[in-house]
């Protein structure tokens, strides 16, 4: 008889469904189309970042510098426009900076063989420091008249759906396409699953790893632009926040194992939905900040504990190495 087993993805989906049902029944004003859109809108940026992290984690890496890529290049674009440069020039500069940053990350990890955790921890600090000391006049880079029109990236609606949700959806489609239908995507899974086997079979591992970090940085920069457009400024201080943990949480909670080679866009969407539902419900209930943290912690712990009961670790999975 085959033993029925839940994957973490299914467990998280079940927790999400349960929470969603409970909120829908007991929380007045939760299950309205308007609130559903707000829920998604609030986690759109987190979701986009989750996609970037997913690409790296599937390739058996981790990118702690993602928030620096979110904060610094978009901040630079805003600052340049404020200083009188044109919007296209500023955006191009931001994108070039992002690519350069991704290349440095990729080179350190693929060629210099620095573990991704430490490499990106250092480069993230470096980029954020560079931003603070050399690029921005103030921590919060304000929107200026030269940016007019660009705020549509994060504000307003397209066919009645808030733009940031549309941007998340577009990012999902692009990343899903890259991962599932391109050779590059297949290589990432192969490298994540077994880097040595991938190299032996002739996959150009190192360039693929570099590309992985460049794409992640670019998605991070995109998330930053959506965020800046959404709040009409770039609070570059976000680098010092706990956002990166939330991103890792979305990815891991959604069921993308840190040991690499597994998962996809759907996992990120599920992880994002669970976080979004929790945050939205707690905001409606007006639960205090400390209370919210407590509840978040309990729910996440429950999910992880349930997973380890249903899918106990054995010799083989332990060998794969969780971080």
């Amino acid at each position, binding site marked *: 008889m085959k033993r029925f087993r839940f994957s973490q993805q299914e467990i998280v989906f079940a927790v999400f469904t349960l929470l969603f049902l409970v909120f829908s029944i007991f929380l007045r*004003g939760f299950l*309205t189309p*308007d*609130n559903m859109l*707000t*829920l998604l*809108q*609030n986690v759109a*940026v987190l979701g986009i970042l989750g996609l970037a992290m997913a690409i790296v984690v599937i390739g058996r890496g981790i990118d702690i510098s993602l928030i620096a890529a979110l904060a610094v290049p978009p901040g630079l674009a805003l600052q340049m426009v404020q200083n009188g440069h044109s919007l296209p020039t500023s955006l191009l500069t931001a994108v070039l900076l992002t690519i350069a940053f991704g290349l440095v990350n990729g080179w350190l990890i693929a060629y210099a063989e620095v573990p991704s955790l430490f490499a990106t921890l250092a480069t993230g600090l470096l980029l954020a420091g560079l931003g*603070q000391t050399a690029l*921005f*006049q*103030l*921590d*919060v880079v*304000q929107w200026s008249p030269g940016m007019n029109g660009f705020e549509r990236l994060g*504000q*307003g609606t397209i066919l009645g759906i*808030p733009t940031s949700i549309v941007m998340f959806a577009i990012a999902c489609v692009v990343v899903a396409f890259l991962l599932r239908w391109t050779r590059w995507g297949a290589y990432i899974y192969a490298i994540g699953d077994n880097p040595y086997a991938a190299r032996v079979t002739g996959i150009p591992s190192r360039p693929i790893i570099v590309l992985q970090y460049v794409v992640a940085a670019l998605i991070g920069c995109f998330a930053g632009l959506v*965020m800046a457009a*959404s*709040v*009409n*400024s770039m*609070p570059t*201080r*976000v680098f*010092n*926040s706990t956002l990166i943990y939330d991103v890792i949480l979305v990815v891991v909670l959604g069921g993308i194992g840190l040991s690499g080679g597994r998962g996809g866009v759907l996992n990120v969407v599920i992880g994002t939905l669970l976080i979004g539902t929790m*945050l*939205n419900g707690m*905001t*409606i209930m*007006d639960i*205090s*900040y*400390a209370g919210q943290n407590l509840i978040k912690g309990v729910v996440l712990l429950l999910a992880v504990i349930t997973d380890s009961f249903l899918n106990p670790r054995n010799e083989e999975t332990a060998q794969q190495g969780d971080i």
Partner: protein
Amino acid sequence: MKHFGSSTRATVAALALAAMIAPAIAQQGLDEPFQKPFKEALAGKTVAYVPVAMNFDLTEGWYAGLKKELEPFGVKFVIRDANWNTNAGAQAVTSLISEKPAVMVVHNPDVQTYAKLLQRAENEGIYVIQINMGSAYRSSAFVGANWVEIGERQTEAVVKACEGKSNKIAIVQGALSAAASAYTLKGVENVLAKHPEIKVVSSQAADWDAAKAKAITQTVLKQNPDLCGIVGFWDGMDIGTAAAVKEAGLTGKVFVATSGGGERKGACELVKSGAFDLNMSYDVPTQAAQMAGTIKWLLSSSVKPGSIKGSEYTTLIPITKENADSQMSCWNLSDLKK
């Protein structure tokens, strides 16, 4: 007659002498006895500055203002940027205690962390000036905004704007343990106690983060589209609050009150654009000037650090559409740095 004549001559001579000497005395001038010891008391002294972080309008403004007032007197100005990290800040204060600057200007991230350290610093002979966000320890001087008053005045404005409307308001707090957040909330409560008709539909902390403030406000507005006012705790964060109000198409219908340092881009421009209806400014250049004045006085008075304790609450400037255009309401960081 002869006697009379000689006396006349003597008088004339005396007058002539006086006429010659008097201008000479005036030209010599009178030495002011206090400026020399004042200069000596300041020259070569070190003033250390520990803000919660540099690179935002408040801390940059205080820095520029202090530098401008103190450096011409030969005061050495050192900075220890805690960069939003409470541990780094506590370490900076600890290491400064052993370096023994004459004065420490401290911007507390919360009311507890530095309290013991600041007491130790004063025991070691360092004057401690706390700026805007105080700690539980009262040092030589506190220069800053009266948060309770800010909370009260913001809430009064929101309550007034709510007259004849739904009476539903929301509160967007900062970081719960910071003096600026906790004391402002007290002010809000003081006013709400007098207005039982007002219903607070949401009171949450956005942790000084604009994106979080936006997310919270969006959700609250969807639940309560008839909301009539929001009390926000800092304009740097409430850019997000205002963005959510604008996105919901409720600018002008939901009264947004906030507070900040009064820098032009962050305050007056945003009031003019309609993002904020009221911004209580604590006027950073004035705060810097008062701090500098206090430092000069302390250094030249040679009172023992810790033996006197006082407060200087700065006068608040309510910025609304009426005065947002005035040159006096706001200040430019770029000008202050010149």
